[in-house]
C-alpha cells in the first residue's frame, strides 16, 4: 500500500523530468565545471591581482550602470507616452502603437549594434547630416562614438533594445489600472500628470524595478554587443573571458573559469535581489489593486 503511494508521488514528477535532466546536463554542469576552479586559492589570487580583471570588472560595472540608467529613462518616457495615449486613443490603435514601440525587440542585438554604429559612426548617418549642415568640415571631426573606450555606442544600443522590454513588462500591469479611477480623479480637479505620479507610478514601480534589474543582469553578462562595438582595452568581463579562452584554451582555462564563476555569482545575486523585491513590493501592489 505504501509502495503504491510513493510511486504515485514520483509519477507526477515524470512530466518535468526530461526538462530537468536536459537543463542540468547542458546548463548546470557548465556552471559546476566553472566553479571547480574557484577553490584553487592561488589561482583566485592570481586572477584578481592581475591588472586586467579588476579593470574589466569596474569597466563592465560602469558600462552596465550607465546603460541601465539610460534604459530606465527611455522606458519611463515611453510608458508615460503610452499612458497618455491610452486615455485618448482607442484600444485597437493603442495596440498598434504599442507594437511600434516594441519593434526593437524583434531585432537581434547584433543587428541593433550594427544599426547604431551606422547611425552614429564617423562615416555614419548623423555625421553625414552634420557635414551637410555645415557643422563639420571633414569626416573625422565628428566625435568617435563607436569602438572607443567609453562605450557610448554600446550604451546607446542597450538603451534602444532593452527599453522596449521594460515597457512591455510594465505595460501589462499598467493596463489593469482602471481608467474610471482617472475619471473620478478628474472630478476632483486632478490632471493626468498628477494621476500618473500619484497613482500609476507607485503601482507599476515594482515590476518596473524588477525588469530594470533583469535587464541589468543581462547587460552585465552580455557578450555580443561589447564584442561588436567595443575596444581591445578595456574589455567587459564576458569578452575578457571569451578572448582568453579563445586564444589559449588549455593554458588559460583555469583563469577563464574563475572569471566565469564570478560573473555567475554576480548575476545570481542580482537574481536574488529581484526575487526579494518581487516578494515584498509585489504583495503590496496586489493588495492595492484588489481594493
Amino acid at each position, binding site marked *: 500500500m505504501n509502495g503504491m503511494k510513493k510511486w504515485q508521488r514520483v509519477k507526477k514528477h515524470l512530466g518535468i523530468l526530461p526538462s530537468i535532466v536536459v537543463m542540468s546536463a547542458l546548463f548546470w554542469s557548465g*556552471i559546476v565545471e566553472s566553479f571547480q576552479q574557484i577553490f584553487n586559492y592561488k589561482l583566485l589570487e592570481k586572477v584578481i591581482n592581475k591588472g586586467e580583471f579588476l579593470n574589466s570588472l569596474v569597466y563592465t560595472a560602469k558600462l552596465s550602470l550607465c546603460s541601465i540608467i539610460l534604459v530606465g529613462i527611455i522606458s519611463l518616457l515611453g510608458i508615460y507616452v503610452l499612458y497618455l495615449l491610452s486615455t485618448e486613443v482607442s484600444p485597437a490603435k493603442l495596440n498598434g502603437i504599442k507594437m511600434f514601440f516594441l519593434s526593437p525587440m524583434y531585432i537581434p542585438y547584433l543587428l541593433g549594434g550594427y544599426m547604431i554604429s551606422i547611425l552614429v559612426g564617423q562615416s555614419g548617418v548623423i555625421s553625414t547630416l552634420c557635414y551637410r549642415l555645415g557643422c563639420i568640415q571633414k569626416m573625422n571631426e565628428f566625435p568617435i562614438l563607436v569602438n572607443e573606450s567609453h562605450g557610448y555606442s554600446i550604451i546607446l544600443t542597450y538603451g534602444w533594445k532593452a527599453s522596449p522590454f521594460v515597457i512591455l513588462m510594465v505595460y501589462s500591469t499598467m493596463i489593469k489600472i482602471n481608467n474610471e479611477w482617472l475619471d473620478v480623479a478628474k472630478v476632483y480637479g486632478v490632471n493626468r500628470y498628477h494621476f500618473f505620479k500619484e497613482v500609476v507610478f507607485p503601482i507599476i514601480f515594482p515590476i518596473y524595478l524588477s525588469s530594470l534589474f533583469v535587464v541589468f543582469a543581462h547587460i552585465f553578462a552580455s557578450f555580443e554587443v561589447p564584442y561588436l562595438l567595443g575596444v581591445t582595452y578595456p574589455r567587459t568581463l564576458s569578452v575578457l573571458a571569451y578572448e582568453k579562452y579563445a586564444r589559449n584554451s588549455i593554458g588559460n582555462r583555469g583563469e577563464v573559469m574563475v572569471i566565469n564563476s564570478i560573473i555567475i555569482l554576480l548575476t545570481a545575486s542580482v537574481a536574488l535581489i529581484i526575487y526579494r523585491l518581487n516578494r515584498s513590493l509585489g504583495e503590496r501592489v496586489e493588495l492595492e489593486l484588489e481594493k
Partner: protein
Amino acid sequence: MILFPFIPLVLGSISSGWRFGEILPPNYSMDGYEYVLKNRSTWIGMGYNLSIAYIVAIINLFLAIPAARFLFRKKSRFKGIYMVILFAPLIVPPLSSVLGIHHSMIIYGLTDNLLGVILVNIIPSFPYVLLSLYGSFKGFSKRLEESALIDGVSRIEMYRYIILPMLIPGILIGSTISILISLSEYILTLLIGGGEIITLPILMFPYLSSGDKIVGSVYAILFILFNIVGILLFELGIRFALKKITKVR
C-alpha cells in the same frame, strides 16, 4: 522625442546596399545584393540556421509542455527549486556555462557538429518557451482535466483533445521566440560549432563589426526577412499539424 530611437530602424532599411560615400548615396547599385546572394556560404548558412532553429523549437516544445503542466498545475514543494533550475539561463549568462562545458563537449565529441550546436541552442531558448506556456496554462481550469479523467478519457486522448488545443496560442508564441533566439545566436553556435557549422549571424559578423555599410546592410535586411519568413513557415506548419492532431472524429 520618443521616435528618435527608431530612426536606426528606418534608416537601416533605406541604406540597404546603396551607400557609397559619406554624403547621401550618389550611386545606387545592387552589387551588394549580388555579392551576398551569389555566395554559396550564404545559402548554406541559412540552411543550417533554419534547421537548427526548427529542431530546437520542436525539442523545446516537447520538453516544455509536460514541464509547464507540472509546474503550473500540480502541487509540490520542489516547485521552487525546479523553477530555479529551468529559468536560470534567463539571468545567468549561457556563455559562462557553455565555456565551462566546452571542454567536456570536446571529449564527448559534441563539437564541430550539428548535434552539439542544437543542444547548446536549447539553453537560452527553453526558458522563454516555458514562460509562454505559463500564460496558456493559467487560464485553464484544472477541473476540465479532472472531469475528463473521470469520464474515462485515456492519457493520450486527454493531451490531444483537451490540453493541446488550449495551449495553441502559447505554443505559437513560444516557438516564435525560440526560433528568433536560435536564429540570432552567435557566440554559442560559433564556440561549439567550430568553423564547421555556419549560420547567418556568424557569416554577418565580420561585415557588421567593420561597419561596412554595403554588404553589412544587405546581410541585415536579408537576415530580418529570413527571420520573418522562417517564423511564418514554422507557424503555418505547426498550426496545420496541431489542427490535424486535435481534430475530434
